[in-house]
């Protein structure tokens, strides 16, 4: 069986390696992808149309906003599925008791380091979210970092003390609120007479903005929605995975 698997892997691998020669070279200006009118339009016009210097965020949050909306929904659905599989009904749970005091004496160095580190991580995560349309980053990356700061709290101390900061119910509400913010911005565009997630029309209700600035600002709003969902879903997944859904001890 192992031999058969090895043969299959070797054949597939060599077939894949054979086709590598047909791929365009890295950064080739004459490759089909670089020559297509769509990518030329993005490269030339994104800054004029949206005033967003980071092309990647402009494409993700504006031109292909529908795609990113449902990526966020996929993250939310994944979190809900994990809670549905691992989670216990809240009646069966004992009241959450924090044992943080015990851990303070056990791992003073870890506890103190985390106390210093977590605010910096959260501040950097907020910076990544807010600055996502000017530099690399955005809702997904910043949201994961924000969730990771809570996970660090749970790893360093214990899960109940992290759940006291961000309880399961609150995290679930935040996760749904993120998708609602994103879809809500799209619906507002719809109500103002434009297409779903066509942000330009929001300049009518945002004070002192042109159509171009409105697209940039609503990209920020959309990123905040994504960050809400991703951060709380990451923490929820960790909380359920590490405690087998009991939300008691964790690792």
């Amino acid at each position, binding site marked *: 069986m192992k031999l058969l698997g090895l043969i299959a892997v070797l054949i597939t691998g060599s077939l894949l390696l054979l086709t590598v020669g047909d791929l365009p070279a*890295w*950064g080739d200006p004459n490759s089909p992808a670089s020559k297509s009118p769509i990518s030329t339009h993005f490269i030339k016009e994104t800054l004029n149309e949206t005033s967003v210097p*980071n092309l*990647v*965020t402009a494409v993700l949050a504006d031109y292909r906003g529908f795609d990113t909306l449902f990526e966020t929904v996929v993250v939310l659905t994944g979190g809900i599925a994990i809670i549905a599989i691992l989670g216990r009904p809240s009646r069966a749970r004992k009241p959450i008791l924090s044992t943080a005091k015990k851990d303070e004496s056990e791992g003073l160095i870890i506890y103190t380091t985390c106390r210093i580190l977590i605010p910096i991580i959260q501040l950097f995560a907020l910076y*990544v979210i807010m600055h996502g349309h000017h530099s*690399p*980053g*955005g809702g*997904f*990356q910043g949201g*994961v*970092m924000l*969730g*990771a700061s809570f*996970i660090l709290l749970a*790893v360093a101390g214990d899960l109940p003390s992290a759940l006291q900061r961000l309880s399961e119910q609150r995290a679930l509400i935040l996760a749904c609120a993120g998708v609602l913010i994103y879809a809500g911005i799209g619906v507002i565009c719809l109500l103002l007479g434009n297409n779903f997630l066509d942000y330009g029309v929001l300049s009518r209700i945002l004070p002192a903005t042109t159509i171009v600035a409105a697209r940039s600002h609503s990209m920020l709003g959309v990123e905040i929605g994504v960050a809400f969902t991703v951060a709380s879903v*990451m923490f929820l*997944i*960790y909380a359920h*995975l*590490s405690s*087998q859904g009991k939300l008691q001890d964790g*690792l």
Partner: protein
Amino acid sequence: MIWQFDLIILIFLVVTAVIALRTKDLLGASMIFGIYSFLICLLWAEMGAVDVAFTEATVGAGVSTVFLVATVFNTKRKASD
């Protein structure tokens, strides 16, 4: 693109991939999987795809390693085959 840098990363990628598959200790395998993610993140950053590299560093090397470790702690530490 610096080909020497690429070559070193690609060699390490293959080595970490093989080790992650061969290791019987699942905790060690998930740690090495985190290293694999981080090497891919370096490769992307070096090719200029900074956004993708950022996502790989946070999701791949960061959170998914933690998820794997959490799962290993709640199941078995040794692989059966």
